[in-house]
């Protein structure tokens, strides 16, 4: 176990903090993710799960703390070096964030053409293969993103995230808005990315069924901190009242929703 390959975590967060104005969203998040591991972050709506991912990929700048990717502190790298760090990443945005000026296949092939300088013809073939993996036909590839349903857009976003075969993929609610069968297809796809291709995955989900299936490890974000971290098999007997309430989807418990009755 003394080879650095195994000891340096793929992603390592230490005491990461992020506020918007007076509002503290991340209040000291510490998390290590090993290479080839699939970690799922759960937590209530608006607790900062998306902010957490965006801080790691550098879309948002953390106020303080250390974020390391392959042992390199990415909060310190220059803008130009940032692009090479980003090469390791694939990201599925919560709102898909497809380029609406490009047809679907060009969206999927975008990273291949821009990053890897693949020819349009080759990239298109790869895009269509990748679309097939998320259950979309080649004809869909010719449509504009605005012509797709929400769930289809999500799957195109997913295809775009995995097309470049990145080392690390971030999935922001991959199964939200999909029917149960398609959701399971996507779960299997994520599992195959992690298990077969050795990709490291950090996912956000509210779908506990999906979380149990795709995660090696589950961690829960609450009030800016990761309050629980454990094997996916243990989420149902975590012994943590917050996690239990979340997993059972119960309105009664320590987490109080800010609603008026």
């Amino acid at each position: 176990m003394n080879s650095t390959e195994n000891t340096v975590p793929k992603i390592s967060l230490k005491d990461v903090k992020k506020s918007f104005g007076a509002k503290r969203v991340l209040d000291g998040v510490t998390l290590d993710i090993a290479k080839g591991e699939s970690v799922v972050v759960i937590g209530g709506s608006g607790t900062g799960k998306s902010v957490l991912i965006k801080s790691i990929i550098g879309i948002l700048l953390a106020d303080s703390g250390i974020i390391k990717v392959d042992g390199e502190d990415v909060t310190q790298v220059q803008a130009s070096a940032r692009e090479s760090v980003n090469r390791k990443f694939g990201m599925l945005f919560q709102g898909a964030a497809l380029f609406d000026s490009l047809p679907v296949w060009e969206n999927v092939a975008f990273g291949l053409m821009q990053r890897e300088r693949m020819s349009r013809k080759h990239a298109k073939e790869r895009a269509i293969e990748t679309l097939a993996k998320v259950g979309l036909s080649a004809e869909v590839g010719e449509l504009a993103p605005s012509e797709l349903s929400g769930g289809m857009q999500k799957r195109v976003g997913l295809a775009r995230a995995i097309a470049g075969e990145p080392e690390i993929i971030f999935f922001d609610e991959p199964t939200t808005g999909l029917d149960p069968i398609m959701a399971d297809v996507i779960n299997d796809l994520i599992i195959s990315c992690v298990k077969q291709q050795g990709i490291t995955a950090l996912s956000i989900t509210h779908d506990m069924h999906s979380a149990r299936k795709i995660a090696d490890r589950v961690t829960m974000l609450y009030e800016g901190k990761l309050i629980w971290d454990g094997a996916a098999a243990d989420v149902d007997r975590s012994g943590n009242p917050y996690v239990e309430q979340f997993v059972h989807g119960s309105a009664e418990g320590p987490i109080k929703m800010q609603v008026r009755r």
Partner: protein
Amino acid sequence: MNFLALIGRVVLAFLGHIGRLTLFTGTALSHCVRPPIYPRLIGRQMIDIGYYSLPVVGLTAIFSGMVLALQSYTGFARFAAGSENAVANVVVVSLTRELGPVLAGLMVAGRIGASMAAEIGTMRVTEQLDALTTLSTNPYKYLVVPRLIAGTLMLPLLVFIADIIGIFGGFVVSVYKLGFNPAAYISNTYDFMQPLDVISGLVKAGVFGFIIALMGCYSGYHSKGGAQGVGAATTNAVVSSSILILTFNYIITELFFGT
């Protein structure tokens, strides 16, 4: 006291804007000279800015040329007879120096600046700009640089065409309405046409094209907060580029012709 605070806030906001704009311009320019460049995208923007603006700019130019001829004739007729030379002179000088670049600039600011701000602004609020970054594509290179290059190159071309169309408009009114001798009018036009007038107009056009693309991209890039934010960005792009166009119009005129 409250009043002073208000002034202070406005001044700070203004300075903040200037700072951000300067930074934005510097970053954009530095990306203009570093690879990769995207010829395909530059080409598409050139078509958008140059070709599709032709009808608007052409119409503006022809009516401006026509009204110039009519106005200067009726104006001069009060003072002197035989004002035919003067009409051709006024048309050619004011079009090439002033009206061609300024009117084309303002029209293109409304057409192109607004659409750039709306497009990039929508990309901002729908996280498409973030998606670009995660796909290792720099938004400055991919979106801003092609627009800046296309704007700076295409506006002079548009203005050159506008000059020709405008002079033709003046010719039409002079000959068919005012009954001037066509051959004399054309030779007058040639005599009065100074290379420096035309060149100064084209330089203005290049600067205006840069301003339009810059303000369109800047407003869109810094827009926030959904549809309303995009709307504000669009308005901001048109208003600020129009004001900057008029300001730089004076500055460039001063540089060329000021004594």
